[in-house]
């Protein structure tokens, strides 16, 4: 089918695009906008590497048609830092070494950010369960959860 005119708002910037309806939001972000921080792992909703925030909700962007994201506020990992200052969860991943190859990291960071916005006051067990849709094949998750717990403390301290 012909491409459709769509306006996407990504990290506060508006883009007027022509998109084929069959393109996923993930493909639009990466291939059309060149925002390659968001990763494609499984492309079937199972790994969480493609997690972005749409209107305040963390979603797997490989399951979303790009045309249906028109008019919504999309945040990717590229949009988390404010004025060059990293979001607490980004800083925490650096401090704790919460990554090895780094492929899963943007998905974990964006999913964690959404959880922290919703409620930073969770136990490690609760964060572990809530991040069940994100897979890491390197770290064994210990450092990732350390990072998330550090960020949760930080966010609560400055709240």
């Amino acid at each position, binding site marked *: *089918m012909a491409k459709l005119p769509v306006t996407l708002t990504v990290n506060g910037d508006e883009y007027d695009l022509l998109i084929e*309806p*069959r393109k996923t939001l993930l493909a639009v972000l990466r291939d059309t906008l060149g925002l390659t921080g968001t990763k494609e792992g499984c492309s079937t*909703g199972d790994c969480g590497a493609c997690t972005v925030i749409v209107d305040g909700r*963390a*979603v*797997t962007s490989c399951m*979303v*048609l790009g045309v249906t994201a028109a008019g919504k506020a999309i945040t990717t990992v590229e949009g988390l830092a404010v004025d060059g200052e990293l979001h607490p969860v980004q800083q925490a991943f650096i401090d704790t070494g919460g990554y090895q190859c780094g492929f899963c990291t943007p998905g974990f960071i964006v999913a964690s950010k959404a959880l922290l916005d919703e409620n930073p006051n969770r136990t490690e067990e609760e964060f572990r369960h809530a991040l*069940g849709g994100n897979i890491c094949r390197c770290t064994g998750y210990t450092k990732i959860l350390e990072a998330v717990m550090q960020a949760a403390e930080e966010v609560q301290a400055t709240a």
Partner: protein
Amino acid sequence: MKSFEFFEPTTLAEASRLFAAEHAQLLAGGTDLVIGMKARTETPQSVISLQKIAGLAGITRYGGGVSIGAMTKVRDIEVSDEIRNGYTALAEGAAEIGSIQIRNLATLGGNIAHASPAADTVAALLALDAQVDIAGANGERSVPIDALFTGPGQTVLTPGEIITRFRLPSPASGSHYIKHKIREVMDLAFIGVAAAVDMADGTITGARIGLAAVAPTPIRAMEAEGLLAGKSLTDALLAEVGEAAAAACSPISDLRCSAEHRREMVDVLTRRTVQEAVARAQV
């Protein structure tokens, strides 16, 4: 993914008209359809999004019960106080679907219309006696959820018909859902069992049991339900109820487990689910 024509109607009538065409598919949350289209198990010529139709999402009071719009995200059902308190089994079923990222997309209508015998919300909707409202070219109609399914992936919906909402009667005294699975999250149900009981003075006045993934369609365990009515719960009664539920199913053997194991687990999990629903009814 194959190309398709994309429609975003703003009224149900328009959506229904478009959906009545050959090779048309509805897009609700997209978590099944988009993945199916990528795998080319779904190759619709037109995709009709329900996302621009006002009034299809949300949880509202309805008489003594609640109405849940078909486009309500399962995440919103999982975290709703109204559902958690009054319709606990449904909140528990919703929480079992995929991951938070998927539950933020997936809708209750999509989970049900897909007619997977293993849908995580369906056992609870059966136990909670949901009524399914449907809109189509010939107006609206309503069917009880246990009359919705005709086979795996199949329902009584005729071309162009769209599920608009689920109505649940006033809350049962207690309800509970158990999913038998391997992984803590992101797993398909080997079996799903939900029970809802009404109680008065320690006596069960009514019970409903929904079973998922144990037959070609989700089913009610009617005989087991009948055994509970008018009684108070004893170990002997629970044993009978578990056996009756197991007898009601016609499970298959597949990659995930054998038919014998499924039947055995229906027995065990029905006992546990009923016990918990009764315990909840008494607090």
